[in-house]
C-alpha cells in the first residue's frame, strides 16, 4: 500500500479558506427611538387627517340640518293637511257606518276640553289597512 498513485478526494492545495464561526448580527435598520418616532409620526398624521375630515363632515351635517329647517314649514303644512284630510274622511265614513247604531254621536269629542288635541296614528288610520298603520308607525313592514 505505499504511495501508489490512487485517485482520492483530497483538499485543495493550500488548505481550505477560513470558516466563519463567529456570530454575525449586524445592527441595521432604524433604531428603537427612530421606530417609535416613525410610528408616532404616522399616528399623529392619521389623527390630524381624521380630525380635519370629521370637522368637514360636521359642516356637511349642519348644512343638511339647515336644509331641513328651511323646508320645515312646507313639511309641517303637508303633514297638517294630511292629518285634516284623514280626519275628515274618518268622520264622513263614521257617519255612514254608524247611522243605524242607537245613541251614537258622530264626531264625539272624547275630552272635556274644547282645545285641539292632536290625533294619534291609531285614530287616523283606524279605517285604513292595517299594513299602512304598521308602516307608518314602525317605518317598516316585514314581520307582521
Amino acid at each position, binding site marked *: 500500500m505505499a504511495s501508489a498513485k490512487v485517485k482520492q478526494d483530497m483538499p485543495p492545495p493550500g488548505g481550505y479558506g477560513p470558516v466563519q464561526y463567529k456570530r454575525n448580527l449586524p445592527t441595521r435598520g432604524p433604531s428603537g427611538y427612530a421606530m417609535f418616532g416613525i410610528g408616532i409620526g404616522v399616528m399623529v398624521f392619521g389623527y390630524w387627517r381624521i380630525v380635519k375630515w370629521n370637522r368637514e363632515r360636521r359642516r356637511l351635517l349642519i348644512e343638511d340640518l339647515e336644509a331641513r329647517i328651511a323646508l320645515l314649514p312646507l313639511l309641517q303644512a303637508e*303633514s297638517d293637511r294630511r292629518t285634516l284630510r284623514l280626519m275628515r274622511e274618518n268622520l264622513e265614513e263614521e257617519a255612514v257606518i254608524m247611522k243605524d247604531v242607537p245613541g251614537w254621536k258622530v264626531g264625539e269629542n*272624547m275630552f*272635556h*276640553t274644547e282645545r285641539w288635541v292632536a290625533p294619534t296614528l*291609531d285614530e287616523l288610520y283606524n*279605517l285604513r289597512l292595517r299594513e299602512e298603520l304598521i308602516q307608518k308607525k314602525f317605518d317598516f313592514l316585514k314581520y307582521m
Partner: protein
Amino acid sequence: MPFVDLQGRLGINIDKWILAHSSEQPYKRAARCHAFEKEWIECSHGIGKIRAKNECKLEFEDFYECMHREKTNKRQYEIRTQRDKLVKEGSYTPPPQHSGKDEMRP
C-alpha cells in the same frame, strides 16, 4: 321635606325635572300631554289629595285619556267592528282610500 322647599332655596333642580312631564325638558321638546298635565297640576296644587280628587275630576280624566286613550281606542274599535259587520252583510263597501287602492298623497 314637605314644608322646606330646599331645592327652591338653594336654587337647584335635582329631581324636579323628573317628576312631571310638564317640567323643563331637554331640547325644549314638549310632552304629548303637556297641556293636560299642566292643567291638572295647576288645578290640584296645594289643596290636598281628597279635595283634588273631588274638584279636579275633569282635568284628571282628560289627562288620563290623553295618556292612555282608552275611550278613543274603544270608540275606534266599535266603529271598526261595526264596519266589518256591515261589510260581511254586504250593505257597505269601503271607499277606495280605505281598501288600499288610492295613492298616498300628502
